[in-house]
């Protein structure tokens, strides 16, 4: 019995310690990455890992990168981030919203280390934040979905009710309404970023309820595969998922973090790094649309035009008049929604979304 307890303790310890993968050597700038999922999710984490590889490729011998995968948001994250800081990493990217407080805490203890926190809104002298305007891509997706849908019902798999996700749903709806004002969007909250079983369940349920286009704000390929199994079109998320569903994916929002990661790493090398908040969209190329596939030429053409307009800045996804569900005017006609506070803290649905926002 004693032995067993010992054995179980050792096993537990092995389970709880993260595998730190590193390509070690001295005198290089060590850059660390904290991932929420596995780099092989072919979604969110995959996109960050592609960017990490770009840093290695572009800066070659000047840098050395380390990543820690599958770090849960919460106390474990703090431990993992601190571990990277302790082991001489000068620049650390923490790539999920829930790492916000842990990152700030560790940053206080290591004032000489630079931190980059993705999708957060709290900065410090050595903590910069960055995010991408994914909603621009969602606006394009909404237009495509409305053009392609026969039932007029779209299934939307949402993760957590945070501004980032709500903004995506709203942009999608606004895009859809430009094509079909009566478009319906059914939303299912799965309360996870990555749980393939649950994501597939949600996709199936939405299809059961008559949705004939599926879109997701979760990280795995399960939903698009579930749609493919039923011959229903869907959108990829965070990276190009066409390989998983060649006859299903209409397009995907690709998170192109690479250029930003390279620039920030270069800044640390040059000693010019400063804290700040970066929120780039299609214009600077942080949000890229995967090829438009499995749709008629007219839809493709429309999607291309909208993408071009969003890229050039001629079009803003949140252009008034925009009403909330209660019918109150939130953005007057001719104006666009301000980044702060409206877009950054968005916690209301636009008119037409068929869901009640969870508190």
């Amino acid at each position, binding site marked *: *019995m004693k032995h*067993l*307890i010992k*054995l*179980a303790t050792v*096993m*537990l310890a*092995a*389970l709880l310690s993260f595998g730190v993968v590193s390509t070690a050597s001295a005198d290089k700038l060590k850059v660390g990455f904290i991932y929420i999922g*596995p*780099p*092989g*999710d*072919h979604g969110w984490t*995959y996109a960050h890992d592609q960017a990490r590889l770009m840093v290695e490729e572009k800066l070659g011998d000047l840098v050395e990168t380390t990543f820690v995968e*599958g770090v849960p948001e919460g106390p474990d994250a703090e431990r993992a981030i601190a571990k990277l800081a302790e082991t001489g990493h000068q620049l650390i990217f923490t790539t999920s919203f829930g790492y916000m407080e842990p990152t700030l805490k560790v940053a206080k203890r290591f004032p000489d280390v630079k931190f980059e926190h993705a999708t957060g809104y709290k900065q410090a002298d050595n903590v910069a934040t960055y995010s991408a305007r994914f909603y621009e891509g969602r606006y394009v997706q909404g237009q495509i979905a409305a053009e392609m849908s026969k039932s007029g019902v779209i*299934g939307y798999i949402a993760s957590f009710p945070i501004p980032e996700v709500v903004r995506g749903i709203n942009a999608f709806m606004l895009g859809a309404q430009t094509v079909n004002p009566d478009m319906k969007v*059914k*939303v*299912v*909250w*799965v*309360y996870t970023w*990555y*749980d*393939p*079983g*649950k*994501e*597939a*369940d*949600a996709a*199936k*349920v*939405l*299809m*059961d*309820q*008559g*949705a004939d286009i599926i879109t997701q704000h979760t990280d*795995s*390929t*399960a939903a698009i*595969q*579930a749609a493919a*199994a039923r011959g229903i079109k869907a959108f990829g998320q965070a990276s190009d998922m066409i*390989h*998983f569903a060649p006859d299903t994916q209409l397009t995907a929002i690709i998170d192109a973090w690479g250029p930003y990661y390279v620039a920030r790493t270069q800044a640390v090398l040059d000693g010019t790094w400063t804290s700040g908040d970066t929120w780039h969209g299609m214009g600077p190329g942080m949000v890229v649309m995967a090829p438009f596939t499995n749709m008629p030429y007219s839809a493709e053409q429309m999607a291309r035009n909208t993408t071009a307009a969003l890229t050039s800045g001629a079009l803003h996804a949140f252009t008034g008049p925009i009403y909330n569900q209660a019918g109150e005017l939130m953005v007057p006609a001719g104006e666009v929604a301000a980044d702060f506070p409206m877009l950054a803290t968005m916690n209301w649905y636009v008119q037409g979304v*068929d*869901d*009640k926002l*969870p508190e």
Partner: protein
Amino acid sequence: MTELIIASIMTMMTAATPLMFAATGELICERSGVLNLGLEGMMLIGAVFGFAAAAVTGNATLGLLVAATSGAFAALIFGILTLNLLSNQVATGLALTIFGTGLSALVGVDYVGETIDQIGSIHIPILSDIPIVGRLLFGHDPLVYLAILILLGASWFLSRSRWGMILRAVGDSDVSAHAIGYPVIAIRFAAVTFGGLMAGLGGGYLSLVYTPLWAENMTAGRGWIALALVVFASWRPARVLFGAILFGGITILQLNAQAAGLGIPAAFMSMLPYIATIVVLVLISRDAIKIRLNAPACLGRPFRAER
């Protein structure tokens, strides 16, 4: 509306199938007097090895066989530890779950993001085309039928067959079974292995049919649900069928309620099956005769043959 109901039932059945596999195996195992808390670990081991086999060979059916076999191997380790070496069943079972989680993650690293050909639904001409009933009865994937068949088989085995009675005798009084001359350890080994086989199949169903991909920890607690299900069913196979549909169905209903905009908190719905389990436990605990009828009396107790 009918379309929605049919579609929901079909989705529910697929959600119930992995639970049916795992719970049937565990039920037989517990009926022989062995409590194996390693279900979750065995399911993960089955899921990863099954997926790896399917990805390498391109044959999903072979993947299922590998899934079942690897689950059985994991159970064998458990059997040697608890039956031969008489280690504590609860601690060993928990260790098996932790071991299975780690091993599957390690083996699965190279298979994250791989794709395989999914085992699809069957379509029987004429029969599957009958409106409503056709799809409900003849439109599932083959494993749904296999799970139900095994469940019914287990029910028949326990209540009607000679070996089933012996298995129950071993679970209810190992000492008397031994005194009559039955090989208690061997019978328990068989039951434990069957449990692993089924758990492996349940895991394989998840990675090969349900979501044709491998993801770390993809069972997401279904092994624990299957364990609760055995208690919920008060060790009766027929009730496992009902329970699995209820447990699987609640998750689907929960999502359905959201999609329909009913505004019932998701967490409340997810809680329901567990509340049902506790209520059932309380109810059967109040009736001493019922416990004696169903719960294996030697559950979790190690057996050492006295000469």
